[in-house]
């Protein structure tokens, strides 16, 4: 039986087990009228049996599926002629691939030899047997475990507590995934970074002023010395982020103030969702927009006033990134401004202040920490943004703060270093992980500070 079919059958078993468990519990107390004598509701006894049917069977199915293939292939290989078995492992793997293709009815290359044919038949036969055995074993396990659970049912059994214990276990497991993710991220970047720093000194990376990751691919290649100084990348990243914030913070903040303090419900109901559309647009679309429309526009504009503008100016990428971040800033500030208690506004109006004076002298100072936190989050977002800069920023690491020149960013370099080449031993690919570590640490720091500020601020008025 194939796995989907098996799962369906298991589902049937589950329903049956539920029903049987429930019935037995009821029987034990003499039907529905004696239900008060049960520790838990009858359905919990059903669930209890059902869980006992399901969990062991799934575990077995999982392990079996994992191990089955390995053993079967070993057995098939053992049946191959000695000459084939003696081949190195990689070659053998290819033959196994051929056998598999043949067995699964795929097109194979050329006319398979008799040995291969026999092996494929053998494989199919073994798979048939194994699948049959798997079905039998899994179902048998389900039945046996279910029967035990079923027999253990008695009115004083704490079925609900047991079921809830299992469910709670699953819930805890799920909440661990987030922790595991962080650990996974840290492990995957740290290990490769350590390997990188064993080749390139840490200080060279952090304080180096030149970035040109050309390392020789082959022993006989020359002209590739390689420099791994992260400063130009960092400066480039900060430059583009700074431009983005120059666009996003004033517009986003003013929009939020207007929407929350001045705008009528009509404008608010229209402008807010439209602005939020900006947040939902995929970054690759912004990248396309920046590279195809904005960058050439800035260039012609600059040239018309006699300025020399690089085709991939930091300005273009920064502007478009700023547009992307506007809704981010505005919705965060909106929250924060709305959290300022009305009493503060009323007090200010009572003293005769105009609206703008109230906003500037009362609301903004009160909301400042929250806004700062929001801006920091936006900065961290700008630093980590990838597609816009990959498509619209440059590749050469210029150490400059001139927004009309091309700069490159940390994320661009990670992408260029890793795409296409998956070998894991050159300083070049390892450098991507070191950059990833740097990016992770910087954004993590920013996030922690920002979230802390925002949280503190919320507590202030709650």
């Amino acid at each position, binding site marked *: 039986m194939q796995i989907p079919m098996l799962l369906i059958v298991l589902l049937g078993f589950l329903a049956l087990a539920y029903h049987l468990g429930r019935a037995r519990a009821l029987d034990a107390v003499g039907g529905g009228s004696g239900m008060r004598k049960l520790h838990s509701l009858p359905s919990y006894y059903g669930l209890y049996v059902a869980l006992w049917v399901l969990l062991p069977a799934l575990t077995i199915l999982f392990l079996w599926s994992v191990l089955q293939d390995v053993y079967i292939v070993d057995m098939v290989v053992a049946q191959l002629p000695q000459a084939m078995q003696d081949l190195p492992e990689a070659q053998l793997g290819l033959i196994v691939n051929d056998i598999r293709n043949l067995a699964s009815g795929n097109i194979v290359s050329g006319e398979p030899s008799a040995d291969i044919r026999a092996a494929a038949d053998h494989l199919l036969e073994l798979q048939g047997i194994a699948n049959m055995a798997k079905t039998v074993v899994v179902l048998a396990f389900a039945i046996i475990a279910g029967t035990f659970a079923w027999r253990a049912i008695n009115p004083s059994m704490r079925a609900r507590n047991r079921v809830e214990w299992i469910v*709670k276990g699953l819930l805890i497991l*799920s909440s661990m995934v987030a922790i595991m993710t962080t650990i996974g991220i840290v492990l995957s970047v740290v290990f490769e970074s350590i390997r990188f720093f064993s080749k390139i000194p840490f200080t060279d990376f952090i304080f180096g002023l030149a970035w040109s990751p050309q390392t020789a691919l082959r022993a006989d290649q020359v002209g590739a010395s390689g420099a791994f100084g992260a400063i130009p990348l960092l400066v480039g990243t900060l430059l583009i982020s700074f431009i983005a914030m120059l666009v996003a913070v004033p517009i986003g903040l*003013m929009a939020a103030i207007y929407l929350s303090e001045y705008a009528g419900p009509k404008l608010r109901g229209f402008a807010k969702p439209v602005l939020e*559309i900006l947040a939902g647009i995929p970054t690759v679309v912004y990248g396309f927009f920046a590279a195809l429309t904005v960058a050439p526009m800035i260039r012609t504009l600059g040239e018309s006033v006699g300025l020399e503008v690089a085709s991939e100016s930091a300005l273009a990428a920064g502007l478009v990134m700023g547009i992307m971040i506007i809704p981010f800033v505005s919705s965060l500030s909106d929250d924060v401004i709305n959290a300022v208690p009305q009493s503060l506004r009323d007090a200010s109006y009572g003293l005769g202040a105009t609206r703008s004076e109230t906003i500037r002298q009362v609301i903004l100072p009160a909301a400042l920490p929250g806004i700062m936190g929001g801006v920091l989050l936006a900065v961290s977002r700008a630093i980590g943004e990838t597609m816009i800069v990959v498509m619209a920023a440059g590749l050469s690491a210029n150490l400059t703060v001139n927004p009309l020149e091309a700069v490159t960013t940390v*994320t661009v370099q990670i992408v260029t270093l890793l795409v296409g080449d998956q070998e894991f031993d050159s300083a070049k690919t390892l450098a991507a992980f070191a950059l990833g570590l740097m990016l992770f640490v910087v954004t993590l720091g920013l996030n922690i500070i920002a979230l802390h500020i925002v949280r503190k601020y919320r507590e202030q008025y709650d």
Partner: protein
Amino acid sequence: MAKETFSKVEASLKSRYRRERRFQVFGLGAIFLGLLFVSLLFLNIISNGYGAFLQTHIVLDVHFAPEIIDPQDKADVNPQILAQADYRQLVRQPLREMFPEVTGRRDKRKLYRLLSSGASFQVREMVLSDPGLIGQSRRVSLIADDDVDVIVKGHVTREDAIQRFGEAYVGWIENLVEAGRLEKRFNWGFFLNGDSREPELAGIGGAVTGSFYTLLVTLLLSFPIGVAAAIYLEEFAPQNRWTDIIEVNINNLAAVPSIVFGLLGLAMFINLFGLPRSAPLVGGLVLTLMTLPTIIIASRAALKSVPPSIREAALGVGASKMQMVFHHVLPLALPGMLTGTIIGMAQALGETAPLLMIGMVAFIVDIPGGPLDPSSVLPVQVYLWADSPERAFVERTSAAIMVLLAFLIAMNTLAIILRRRFERRW
């Protein structure tokens, strides 16, 4: 004294009101700018891309000559003959007849380039599905080359076209237009085909399928895990250091750059576990980890918004904590959780950077048949086409973006409708 203050205030009133107005104008200006950016972006994309939904075809009278398709008349014995015949001859014949003045080998080759390399496959499909056509003549709309498409749609000026493609080529096209032999048809291929090196044949079918499988994996994993984690953290977790750590950690993960998740996917799933590159399965795993925080945070907010009175009422009538959560709180919070999940899925659909890291940027023509087949996804297809040199790809890139945005807007609208219909205000 009082009078003095009054006069002071009065004197400053004018400038204060002026400042007030100025401030308002700034605010309105900011909103106007924001709306302007949205409309600019959409106008730009739509004006670039709407053309791709139509494809230029050349109407030709094709004679299904048996001497070309099946010279030995053996198709009954060996159906392979029909599949392998040289159909290019069939579609070139009518072009030659139409322009008998073209004689040189070079010129002829140029003439043939009016038609897409896909045209012969069109004819092949026709013959394979109906072998009775052999020996007959039919008027067929054949796909034109992307260069023809670009010229006919007016994306290059006539001068540029002549400079690039030569006077003769442009002349032929003008002749075809005059003869009414060119027609624009709805471009079904764009939605059904996989990627191609020929813009006129390239489609988003493969990428959309890839996106579908990737999102399927993401949804199947992230929804149950996200909801379960939210329930635990919101309803069961004791207030201690450990849950504090988990909470801070989730908030941080939500703000970690997506490319870092790509690095995780590359190092863990591909290099350590040996999962295949370019597979939707890996993409789905990476995107699951990425969207989990969003879903957990949204689900927790939904749980939080269920008033404590519901919980107390449930506990009061003797429900266990688990019963209270699953029977009373969860059903009330579910719309909010679904909304969060849809928004998370929309985010995952538009994500590109982490997928670049795990090799989903290869040239893949076949439409993937499952989550283990190599495939690309819609935003990565946009990225790939944006890099292609052929001019016709600009149009297609924009059209692909339109499709992507349509999906995203649909998903977000669904989320809003869901919120409006089912979310209760307490």
